[in-house]
């Protein structure tokens, strides 16, 4: 009798618990989720932008420094400022032939004028 009584109480308690389960957040929950998701997405993009702007001045400064060093080391030659800054080698007809003979096979090199 007691067991049966307890069983009935368990069933009643189970029913009470099931009926009392929370089934909703406060109104507008899905809107809050979407807003938060968008904000997170934007903050990611903004973070990427911040990183970009942090790196750009450093990269520009490094490029300028390298260009200055190149120009300084080539200042005695007759290269233009651009060629010197970019450390471009001077190209003439003679050096062009020389470089093609360097890459060409020994046979083809002998056939050159």
């Amino acid at each position, binding site marked *: 009798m007691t067991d049966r009584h307890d069983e009935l*109480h*368990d069933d*009643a*308690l*189970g*029913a*009470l*618990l*099931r*009926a*009392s*389960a*929370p*089934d*909703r*957040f*406060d109104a507008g*929950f*899905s809107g*809050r*989720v*979407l807003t*938060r*998701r968008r904000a*997170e997405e934007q903050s990611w993009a903004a973070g990427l932008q911040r990183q970009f702007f942090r790196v750009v001045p450093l990269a520009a400064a490094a490029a300028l420094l390298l260009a200055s060093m190149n120009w300084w080391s080539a200042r005695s030659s007759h290269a233009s400022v651009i060629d010197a800054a970019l450390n471009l080698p001077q190209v003439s007809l003679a050096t062009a032939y020389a470089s093609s003979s360097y890459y060409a096979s020994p046979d083809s090199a002998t056939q050159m004028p």
Partner: protein
Amino acid sequence: MTDPRPDDELLALARRGDERAFAALVERYEGVVAATAIGMLGRGDDADDVGQETFIRFHRSLDRFRGEASLKTYLAHIAMNLSLNALRSRRRTLLRFSGGDDAVADALEPGAGPAGETDAAELKRVVQHAVTALSEKHRAVVVLRMFQDFSTRETAQMLGVPEGTVLSRLSRAMQELQTRLAPYVRDGFLPTPMETTR
């Protein structure tokens, strides 16, 4: 109005960036996540925050979700883990300053009992407070087994404990709830589905 399209279709659309499909999934599974988060943390900002975070994490893992578990199980699992983390964090900061069972004691005052003019919403609040007053381990089992109707095996998997542990914890939790909610259970004061609000 609820979206009639099946989960698979909504998932495929959400993966392609369809925000309305994702919103439809949020609305469809809000109840599952609410039962877990509010059941574990009580109604309030913490539970709402856990609910939002659950769906944010779900969105991040849309491409990885392959449907091995049902969406309900998957979301309840995330919500349970986040709720347990929130409880640990709350315990570290707030719980040492509060009395713990005061809210339940207040809710179970005679004025709020079945003899008074307690409505269904009030009764739900009382029951939810009684569940919130259980220890963390007992509460987790009640939330998953009784609130959400997960099987013992599913509950054990989600909590990472043996099935026997789930059963023993459930038994102890039910005994404790039986004591706390005796007046409501004895008088057969049950909310009907139409009466229930939250």
